């Protein structure tokens, strides 16, 4: 399968801070690729550069054969690239149902197709169905994460960017979220996953990148990274 996402020599600045330095990576169609790294390494910045919320100063991001690094965020979504942002960011004043409807905001393939995706999301995340008329702000953290993922899936993406989906959740919920990610991927959605929970992430991913202070310092098959002594020491909390 070909590369669905390709980043070449990306540079992103916050004012005078050089947050991302000549970063390159690629994701092939159908893969789960994870990017692991410490707080402040540049994971979220990279995600925002891909989804268009942040503009890069140089380098290129190509998605599905199109250059998207200069494109507005709201247009990138229509190409089938959805982001489930860090911290969930559900619309707390809207109901679960309304949040999911906004996820399908750009869809032009008809009510029936959107309806069948509602069913798909509710089947995959049954808690959302129970709470569909509840305001999103009243959901628990885990439910909000599910809603954020469901909302991203409602745009019928070919590729999903997931930013720290396990943040702040109990181990049991983390397991559930990761199971869902695998299911989403099995349904044909390519996944780029940013995580601090490196162990879980490497466990489900095909390949991985390690990012440190805006640079990719290691890359390889997820299983190789999981067994690498440096990765183990720095990110897996284990002895080498």
């Amino acid at each position, binding site marked *: 399968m070909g590369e669905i996402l390709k980043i070449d020599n990306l540079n992103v600045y916050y004012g005078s801070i050089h947050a991302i330095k000549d970063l390159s990576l690629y994701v092939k169609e159908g893969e789960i690729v994870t990017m692991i790294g410490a707080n402040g390494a540049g994971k979220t910045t990279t995600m925002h550069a891909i989804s268009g919320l942040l503009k890069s100063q140089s380098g290129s991001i190509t998605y599905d054969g199109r250059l998207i690094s200069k494109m507005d965020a*709201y247009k990138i979504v229509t190409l089938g690239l959805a982001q489930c*942002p860090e911290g969930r960011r559900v619309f*707390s004043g*809207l109901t679960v149902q309304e949040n999911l*409807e906004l996820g399908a905001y750009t869809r032009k393939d008809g009510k029936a197709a959107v309806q069948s995706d509602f069913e798909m999301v509710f089947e995959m995340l049954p808690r959302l169905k129970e709470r569909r008329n509840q305001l999103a702000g*009243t959901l628990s953290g885990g439910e909000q994460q599910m809603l954020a993922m469901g909302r*991203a899936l409602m745009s019928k993406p070919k590729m999903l960017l997931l930013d720290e989906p396990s943040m*702040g959740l109990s181990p049991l919920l983390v397991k559930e979220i990761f199971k869902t990610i695998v299911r989403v991927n099995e349904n044909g959605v390519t996944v780029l996953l940013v995580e601090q929970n490196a162990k879980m992430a490497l466990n489900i991913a095909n390949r991985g990148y390690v990012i440190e202070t805006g640079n990719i310092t290691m890359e390889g098959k997820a299983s190789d990274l999981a067994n690498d002594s440096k990765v183990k020491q720095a990110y897996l909390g284990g002895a080498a």
Partner: protein
Amino acid sequence: MQFLGYLISGISLGSVYALIALGYTMVYGIAKMLNFAHGDVIMIGGYMVYFTFCSGGWNPFLAVLFAMAVCTLLGITIERVAYRPLRSAPSLAVLITAIGVSFLLQNIAMLLWKSDPKSFTSIISMEPLSLAGGKLSIPAETIVTILVSVLIMIALIWFVNKTRIGHAMKAVSEDRGAAQLMGINVNGIISLTFAIGSALAAVAGALLLSSYPTLVPTTGAMPGIKAFVAAVFGGIGSIPGAFLGGVLLGVIENLSKAYISTQLSDAIVFLVLIIVLLVKPTGLLGKKTAVKV
């Protein structure tokens, strides 16, 4: 009986404030800025109705529609030219720009139409309503103003809560970044908000001048400030709040004028605002900002 008369005309004046306050509160809720030029859009709307209806002899409906169209264009243009370039600037810069736009509009009006007062003819040509065997007479303007404002507010609440675009507006208001990730064109939504607010300002101008018929280039300034107070009073960002705040403000102002002092009525209005904000800083219907995480 007299009290009832003062009360009803207060509600009517308050309905005009409410219409203007809706524009303030929607723009604040969605674009996160205070558009101090909003009052002057009323004035422009007033002149448009004056030239088409009062001295042009147009049908009043057509005249108001024309004024709404002009103000909508004006609102969108102001946002595009003056505010959009400052989207990521500090809010103080935007505030000062808004005040600048306000002066600009007043001075353009003065240049084009001179500062001598124009005498506005009411757009409503119905007989006053006579109640209680002629003891209470309510001008048709008063009744139409209240009805129009209530209808507009109901329509707006329906629009924001029940339509796809309305939900997109709520989403932009809550989290601009996340809204973009849904594929919502934030600039488009902000333009739409300015368009709606400015169209309502034109209606407010026509209704206000029908009851208070003196039109000068600064006509919009004081109602604009009072409507801003009404929006804060009701809880800025909240549509029902703007309406409640507007009506209460109008009633307080009118009753103070009738029973306390004409000169002091504005002071009393602002005093009530200060007291409300001391007791409830988010305004009467303002939302608490705490969100479960």
